[in-house]
């Protein structure tokens, strides 16, 4: 048990190490400036804050997360509303996704990736015994719908889809009845179809993505550059820090497309290595978490958070390899950027916190019983 935990933490540290290395390398530009050092020092600063926050989250008792889940969710909804208020939310390229407080900035939708699953698990845990009744099984869909609706208003289609996916995985892991999935599917599919037809720029993006498969020259610039960057790397890569593509051809080289830089500089060995680390993190995590009681808040919440994180990495890699349409999703633990790093490490901290106590759920949900033990 202890070994599994250590292996889990070691895998996290290795991924953070790759991230540190690649942020330094990918921030090099064709015209050297002081900014390159700034990226590294800021990444180190973020890393320090994120590790502290993740450590704190890991040290907090498991019941804290269950107790605070509704409040955290309520706060997230409040922030999601706030970000839509003109003048409060910062508008970037026509989308209102950011809240800025001086030098700090926060994406409430990033927060929702953690608080929504926690809240769903909290709700399910309270009603687990009565899942058979339609009146009991349906309410979890309400917070999902509310969150997704708010995120769509920003607008942020990618995150909305991702939140839907995570919510479904959460409900699936938590033991939600299968017939409910069919019902939900019946609702979601026409909704998704409607969404695609909604915004012209979103449709363009998806069409451009499809074009990349037919005719490379027609593909959007970032997909062309991303694939080119990967392809240049070949088997062994051009060597760390020696990539040309990142120097300016590849956009977002140190954030959303850092995986492509790994491909150019470290080659197939590097990209498959990162994949191996993520698969290892997932499998070790599952091994750690399947010891938890299956019908508990901790079980469903931690597995959902783990899946969410690994899935995010997979989606990012899919975008970089043109398997999914471009979507502003960073590679967790590796991309440069404070918000993502903080939320990823907090999620991992929560997983560690929830996995620490393998006592039966009845002992943990009631804090008043703990001192008596």
């Amino acid at each position, binding site marked *: 048990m202890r070994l599994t935990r250590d292996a889990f933490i070691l895998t996290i540290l290795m991924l953070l190490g790759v991230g540190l290395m690649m942020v330094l390398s990918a921030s090099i530009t064709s015209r050297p400036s002081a900014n390159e050092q700034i990226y590294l020092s800021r990444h180190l600063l973020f890393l320090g804050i994120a590790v502290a926050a993740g450590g704190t989250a890991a040290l907090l008792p498991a019941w804290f997360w269950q107790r605070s889940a509704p409040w955290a969710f309520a706060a997230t909804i409040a922030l999601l509303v706030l970000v839509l208020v003109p003048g409060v939310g910062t508008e970037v390229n026509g989308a209102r996704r950011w809240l800025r407080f001086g030098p700090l900035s926060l994406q409430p939708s990033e927060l929702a990736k953690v608080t929504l699953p926690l809240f769903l698990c909290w709700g399910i845990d309270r009603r687990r015994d009565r899942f058979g009744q339609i009146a009991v099984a349906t309410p979890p869909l309400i917070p999902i719908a509310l969150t997704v609706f708010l995120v769509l208003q920003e607008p942020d289609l990618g995150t909305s889809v991702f939140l839907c996916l995570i919510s479904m995985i959460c409900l699936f892991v938590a033991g939600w009845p299968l017939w409910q999935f069919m019902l939900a599917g019946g609702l979601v599919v026409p909704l998704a179809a409607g969404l695609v037809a909604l915004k012209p720029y979103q449709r363009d993006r998806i069409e451009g993505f499809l074009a990349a498969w037919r005719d490379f020259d027609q593909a959007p610039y970032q997909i062309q550059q991303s694939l080119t960057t990967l392809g240049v790397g070949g*088997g062994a890569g051009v060597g760390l820090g020696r990539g040309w593509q990142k120097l300016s051809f590849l956009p977002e080289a140190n954030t959303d497309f850092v995986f492509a830089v790994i491909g150019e500089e470290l080659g197939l060995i590097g990209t*498959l290595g990162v994949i191996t680390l*993520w698969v290892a993190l997932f499998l070790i995590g599952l091994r750690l978490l399947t010891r938890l009681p299956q019908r508990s808040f901790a079980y469903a919440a931690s597995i959902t958070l783990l899946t969410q994180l690994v899935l995010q990495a997979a989606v990012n890699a899919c975008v970089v390899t043109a398997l999914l349409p471009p979507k502003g999703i960073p590679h967790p633990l590796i991309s440069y950027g404070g918000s993502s790093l903080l939320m990823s490490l907090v999620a991992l901290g929560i997983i560690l916190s929830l996995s620490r106590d393998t006592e039966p759920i009845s002992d943990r949900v009631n804090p008043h019983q703990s001192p008596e033990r």
Partner: protein
Amino acid sequence: MTGRLRLLMSGMLLLWAALAFRLVHVQWRQHRTFSEHAVAQQALNETIPARLGDIVDRHGRLLATTARTQSLFVDPSKIAEPEVVAAILAEPLGLEAAGLARRIARNQHRKFLWVKRHLSEWEVDRIYGLELGEPVWGLREEFRRVYPQGSLAAHVLGWRNIDGVPQAGLERTLNTLLQGTDGQRTLVRDARGYVIEVLQEVTQPPRHGGTVTLTLDATIQRIAEGRLDHLVANWNPRSVSAVVLDPQTGEILAMGCRPTFDPARPAAGRAEAWTNHAVSSAYEPGSTIKPCLMAWAVDRRLVSPSETFACNGTYRMGRRLLHDHRAFGTLDVAGIITFSSNIGMAQIGQRLGNERLRAAVRDFGFGRRTGVELPGESAGIVRPLEAWDDFSTGSIPMGQEIAATPLQMIAAHAALANGGLLITPHLVLRDRGKASNREPTGVLATKILDPSTARWMVTGPMVEVVRRGTARKAAIDGLTVFAKTGTAQKYDPATGAYSTDRYVTSCLCGAPADAPRLLVLVTVDEPTSKDAPFGGKVAAPAASDILRRALDALRSPPPSDRLFRMAADTFQHTVNADPSSRR
């Protein structure tokens, strides 16, 4: 592990497996394709322009050369406020701010616009001193054609436009020799176009253009052109041209025209000034052609030098009555030439008949381009034999009904002066006997007369022309000058007859008669004067003045040339003295 968790795990592993396959495909199997794409977008092939070669005169004096200059451009698409940028740039460059602002505004969709080309060093310094946004402007190094002698030999040299594209003259015909081959180097750039690295190993150095040495002698050219200016000032003609030729070799030592232009700024004057009248304008030659046809008739033994002809002022030829300006009485062949008797020449024409007359005209190269290395050469006009009638029999021998360029005329006379060889007149100096592929056209020598006939015509009748004939003004003290003048009435298309007040007068002269070194032809188109401006009066003094001073110049060549000749001679002697070099 529950069934649901297994499903989740399998789904996740499947996703990562798909990714791994995709990565193998992109990074392993398509590695080459994407590498090529990356190189294509990073590498930038830049042309290193070859420098245009120089044009020098026969003594190595620069007539056309190339200088490096800087030119200023802006990127209008990056200029938000054209007025502001224009106001900053206009003053140091001496441009008008409002006009520049309009040009920038009009081209705002473009990424490149010349502001001013070929800046002076002073202007470049001032541009560097300006505070402009960095990506807005740039200087590009360019070559600029420079003509150090100003407008000297402008019609021969021609000119180039601002992009170096040849438009006229030798610049155009010799362009392949002058332009060289551009080099290339490969640069690595980033997506914004900044150059990161120059790849030295793939650099292809430029092959600069070669230097072309002309037969022109800048000193003689300057003498001739000075005299042309003098003629323009005195007679105010439509145009005037002068050619100085070495009859023994066909080398053109000077060729000039008025009106003229500045080859550095050809657009400053009128476009008519670009015409090189010495090769592009054909005139009825008038009497100047008479010695050629007479020599041909004597050479073919159709006329004997001792024969005499009655030239009594009027002569009836069928329905036509010919006039001389006075009655000469009985003239021998030399006399006909000396006094330029039309009646005498008409009788020669009758003796020859149209067919032989035309053969004589063709033998001297009329109606055919000479082959000089200049664009736009006229072939002149010699009509087909079918178009000739008995009127032609009288007209052709006095230089009517045909048209010739001044260069054709002087080349024909060169055949008399050099002992019977029609030599292609040319402007590019031959490589002192060595075969060279740099010579753009071949120089041909065709024997058309027996040397004795040619020598007789030059030393006999044509010397008499100067002694007591129409070209007395061409005489030079201490030299036996031979000459022939011509005064051709211009055909007036409006009346269908010869004009009585518009003439082309010309004078051809050469010296010394026993071994001619130079020929000079001056052609004056429509000199204005109260009385008839005969060739002997207008053109003869100018031609003989050019001849005298050109011969002086030949006797005292510039020092470098003398050294060169001495060195060449020494070399020649050494080779000849070495018995092993003889076969």
